């Protein structure tokens, strides 16, 4: 008897989990299907799981037709690569100083960093500082610099470096190596696991970022991919919510169509889905380290 009841509850559990798991996958499939559908099918049948007529037109237009999309892709890749390299280098270098036990004032530096996790000036002063004092409006640096130093990541790296024995520093010092050389040649390679984790954190947040673009970039050729996607979505929405439908139909030939929007979405999430196995593994690891002590 107990065995039977057990298997019924097991199957209910498996069913519930399966349903939720599939619902997580469902929108991805719908977007891919939408990107391969003809415009008519989307209008007539809506977004479906399987395209009625398969066409690659939207991808063709995406690749050949619009410089703006290629530009946006380039900007996103550039920002992600440059931002990740710079951020990992700068934060790990700072973390090294905070982890250096022979340095008497390292705790003061830690407090300096922690304060930024607790206090927040909010959007208005931050925006005005960036625009008025740092002149970041419409520059590529605006998409990189504000996110470069991250307190949480610094503590993640510092905690890892704390577990590296101090003797390594001392013996290297005996051999005449300076602090920077010790950091660069010894500590960085030894910290590779945590640097990889943080690197993925940072790369993901740069790739997914559109907030900085929204705040600082008005020039179209500097717009990152995510922001371009947002612009397309809101344009269509804007037209849909406007009252005159006939004028909308006239314009709709000129604005990017539904399936192009879907194709752009696929291209935007493509790298993430492609790298997902790595992302997942390192994220779970990093989450555990962070959960132990931030």
């Amino acid at each position, binding site marked *: 008897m107990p065995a039977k009841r057990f298997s019924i509850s097991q199957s209910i559990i*498996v069913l519930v989990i399966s349903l*939720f*798991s599939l*619902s*997580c*996958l469902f*929108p*991805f499939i*719908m977007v891919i299907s939408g990107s391969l559908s003809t415009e008519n099918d*989307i*209008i007539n049948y*809506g*977004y479906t799981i399987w395209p009625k007529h398969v066409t690659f037109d939207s991808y063709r237009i995406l690749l050949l037709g619009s410089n703006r999309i290629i530009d946006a892709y380039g900007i996103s890749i550039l920002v992600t690569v440059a931002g990740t390299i710079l951020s990992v280098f*700068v*934060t790990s*270098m*700072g973390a090294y*100083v905070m982890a*250096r036990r022979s340095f008497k*004032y390292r705790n003061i*530096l830690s407090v300096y960093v*922690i304060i*930024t*996790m*607790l*206090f927040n*000036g*909010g*959007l*208005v*002063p*931050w*925006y*005005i*500082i960036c625009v008025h004092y740092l002149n970041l409006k419409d520059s590529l640096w605006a998409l990189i*610099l*504000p996110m470069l*130093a991250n*307190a949480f990541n610094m503590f993640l790296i510092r905690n890892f470096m704390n577990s590296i024995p101090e003797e390594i520093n001392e013996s290297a010092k005996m051999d005449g190596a300076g*602090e920077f050389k010790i*950091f660069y040649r010894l500590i960085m390679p030894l910290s590779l696991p945590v640097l990889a984790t943080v690197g993925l954190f940072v790369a993901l947040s740069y790739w997914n970022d559109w*907030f900085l673009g*929204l705040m600082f970039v008005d020039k179209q050729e500097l717009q990152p991919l*995510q922001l371009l*996607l*947002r612009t397309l*979505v*809101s344009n269509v*929405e*804007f037209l*849909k*919510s406007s009252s005159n439908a006939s004028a909308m139909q006239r314009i709709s030939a000129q604005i990017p169509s539904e399936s192009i*929007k879907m194709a752009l979405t696929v291209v*935007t999430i493509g790298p993430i*889905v492609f790298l*997902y196995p790595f*992302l997942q593994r390192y994220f779970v690891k990093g989450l*555990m380290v962070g*959960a132990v002590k*931030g």
Partner: protein
Amino acid sequence: MKNGVIRELFKNRTLLLMFLPVAVLLFLFNYLPLAGLVIAFKDFDFTKGIFGSDWMDPLFDNFDYLFSSDTAFRAVRNTILLNALFITVGLIFEVGFALLLNEVRNKYFKRVSQSLTFLPFFISWIVVGVFAYNLLDFESGAVNHFLTTIGLKPIDFYSEAGLWPIILTIAIRWKATGYGTIIYLAALTSVDNSYYEAASIDGATRWQQIRYISLPMLRPTIIILTLLAVGRIMNADFGMFYAMVGDASLLFPTTDVIDTFVYRSLRKSGDIGMASAAGFLQSMIAFVLVIASNYAARKIDKDSAIF
């Protein structure tokens, strides 16, 4: 004494130099905006900058203006109510899903379902906004297509403000449940198996084992994560609101939060006085809440506090 400090700093000048880039970045993007909070008491003039602008006369004029605004009140109310809703539902879903996954015997099934549910965490809210649009659009949305197929009337989601607290909750759960489950599941897998064995020898059912072993084991984690979330209750996730709701002003009665309100006042209406006053209050309340919740978390479990 003072000489000692200088000598120590000079001795470690390379280290200080190595810390300099981060120090400068944090100063520019975190410390300067903190000082910039005084803007709430200034009559801001772009040409004079934050610190050069004249003080407001009377000093609290920006706040008077803010408090007389219904929109601002609405934004505060929405922020707190929506966040409370998100925290509660999130807690139930994440703990519940972790408990369910923990019951699964098949390791392969467990791994695959964890991978699938974690995936949405990695995409931006912009993309989630596109997904939501695919589902909810009046004409081509999948939900309305389904409704018309089974003979029901389609719903114009983008003008039904009342539905959006539910829609946003679903969106967050879709995006973050897999992520939120990880910590709870880790806590569950660390529970010694002998507890369960002893309980089942004593005749406890699976349900009783969950009720009297698993849940109490999760209690500290639940309390701490909830406390830290409550500490951020004044801060709305701007990305989500902006990507999901955007400029659909018909939805503002239930979805306009402090962060979107401040953003609009700053970038759209150019009402910097009101935006800075709202931001100032938000920062101050958030600061008190963060300190208080962190203090409480520290009392419960020393290792879980941020500081």
